[in-house]
């Protein structure tokens, strides 16, 4: 009896961090998938990706007032604004050759710095507070533990978003067209599709994803001066851990990051500052192809 009690006690304290890791991981997935999409499929290195998330976050902080209507409005505005910023980026990237990562990095990093300054100038240097719908403000009981209601709902919404993304990529011809444009832009142009428009479409889609993540994730990774850097950093770690080859790899990497940041911190609080990069270094050392290789083979 005592042994059984001790057994549950050993796992019990870590239930909530593990659950929270899923919420955090799904947020990282939605935020990072846009970058992976740009980088892996269209071969555009977009260092302003974090900025697109921050646009969504600031939109949420500015528009949310505790009601459901404001959430819908913030989501619409955030997605549109971030997608528009993506199209703007595509326009700026027009003279840069596809695959010229250095020029892309310099250009998009400059845009990220300028955009970040504009956001701070517009919204102030303080981290604005985000007001979630009143019905989700409280906490609910999960297996005898208290957990924030918003995060629980977020897990469901983000999972639906991830599933929808998977279906869109798998079941539509858009992805195929994008890859065709990368491999042989002239041939695609012959088919009557402008590569520049495809590039704009990819960046708009990536922006929309980041914007949606920014609005919905604002209560978890809130808007602030460091948000763009944090999200870009996490997205790049996703690329390193999960590779560019498959959505499953991206999802697995994002969930791993989520668990490392929550369950890992709960288990080894003293190692909290290094866990993420220790994991990244370990994956790079053991398996230079990232987790993705195994997933493709499976």
């Amino acid at each position, binding site marked *: 009896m005592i042994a059984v009690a001790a057994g549950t006690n050993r796992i019990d304290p870590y239930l909530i*961090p593990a659950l*929270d890791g899923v919420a955090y991981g799904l947020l990282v997935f939605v935020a990072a998938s846009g970058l992976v999409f740009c980088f892996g499929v269209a071969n555009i290195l977009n260092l302003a990706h974090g900025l697109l998330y921050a646009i969504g976050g600031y939109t949420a902080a500015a528009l949310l007032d505790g009601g459901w209507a404001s959430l819908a409005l913030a989501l619409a505005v955030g997605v549109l604004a971030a997608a528009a910023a993506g199209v703007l980026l595509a326009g700026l990237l027009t003279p840069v050759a596809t695959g010229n990562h250095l020029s892309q990095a310099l250009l998009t990093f400059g845009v990220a710095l300028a955009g970040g300054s504009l956001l701070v100038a517009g919204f102030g240097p303080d981290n604005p507070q985000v007001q979630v719908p009143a019905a989700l403000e409280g*906490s609910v009981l999960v297996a005898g533990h208290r957990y924030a209601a918003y995060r629980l709902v977020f897990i469901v919404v983000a999972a639906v978003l991830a599933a929808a993304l998977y279906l869109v990529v798998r079941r539509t011809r858009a992805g195929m067209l994008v*890859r065709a444009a990368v491999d042989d832009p002239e041939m695609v142009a012959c088919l009557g599709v402008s590569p520049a428009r495809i590039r704009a479409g990819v960046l708009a889609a990536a922006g929309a994803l980041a914007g949606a993540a920014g609005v919905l994730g604002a209560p978890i990774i809130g808007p602030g001066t*460091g948000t763009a850097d944090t999200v*870009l950093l996490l997205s790049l770690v996703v690329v*390193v851990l999960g590779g*560019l*080859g498959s959505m499953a790899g991206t999802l697995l990497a994002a969930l791993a990051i989520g668990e490392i940041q929550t369950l890992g*911190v709960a288990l080894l609080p003293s190692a909290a500052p290094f866990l993420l990069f220790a994991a990244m270094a370990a994956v790079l050392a053991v398996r230079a192809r990232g987790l993705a290789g195994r997933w493709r083979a499976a």
Partner: protein
Amino acid sequence: MPLTTPWRSRALTAALLAAVLTTSTACGDDAAGTSAGGSIKIGLLASLSGTYQAVGTEIRDGFQLYLDTHDGKLGGRQVDLVVADEGNGAQTAVPAATKLLKQDRVSALTGIVGGGSVAGVTPLLNETKVPLVGSNGRPELKDVSRVWHTSYLSDEPGAAIAQHVRDNVKGSVYAIGPDYQGGWDELRGFTDAFGKIGGKLANADGKTTFTPFPATTNFLPYFARIKASGAAAVYTFYAGSAAVDFVKQYAQSEIKDIPLYAAGFLTEGGVLNAQGEAARDIYSVLNYSPDLDNAENRAFVAAWKAKHDGSPTTYALASYDAAAVLDRAIGAAGNDPTPEAINTAIGQLGQIASPRGTWQFSTTTHSPVQKWYLRQVRQDGRALSNTVVGDLATVGR
């Protein structure tokens, strides 16, 4: 999916970028004051841009309020206040202070939000022989001959509340705080005093848990450990946006019913508005509360509310008191209030009447020997406010 450039090179690019991004840079900008002759010149250095803008603004406004309510005079002399921007730290504070001290030739310096800025500016004070009456950050200093503070030492809030926690909490206390100098000092003040009077920490290894700062925005993993430790109460110190995250997440977590004690900055000023209902019932220790019942405070709060929304904070109060200190010291420095004469006069002020109650400078640390108050976040009219519920120890050495 086909890849157009080798995956390996892209992984390397991403890894390198990730490494570069972990080191971030901070920048701020300088602001210039005006110069004029005839009256006494005082330099005020505070963060008017960057992370600590809210605190810096309170410090500027607190000093200005004293001038406005005293005909713009300190010690009977018309004040020419030269304001400069401290930015985010010593990197921007030292050039700004250099300008105030060497170009504007101010007779005294006040303000300064960051402890690091104070440490950076101190050598300049000895070089130019100008006193600093600081109103916020106070690092460990070897030489305080020209440094005075109207605020507090970082380890004093914790030391002041330790006895109260020991008397009122039946069980062990979990100590948690941010992993930087300010956090170490705040938490050490509590754990040292608490341990001396027989208090027991609930932390697994008997040591304070420090969270990476400012990287930690999700405190749930730590809350799980607090829950598992069986603590009867929690003692903490956070400020700014970390304080908002901590308090909001605490109120929604499984340890929401464990009493939370904190250094007052957890619920001070603007962060309390952002925390809202989540902050209700939190106990905190601070050297000031706007509802203190004395004549100086009633006048101070009324004058503040006439010009600003909301109640004054401890930051505004400390700056108001810095002006009061300079007022008396300049008056006592005689016909020729040189910086040296002002510095000597500050050391001979004795008791200083203040909205926080009467206090005096410690002869060894040059920071206040003052009373600390236990406050609780309670309903006050339509808003939540830090309400004084009792007196704690008088601390200072």
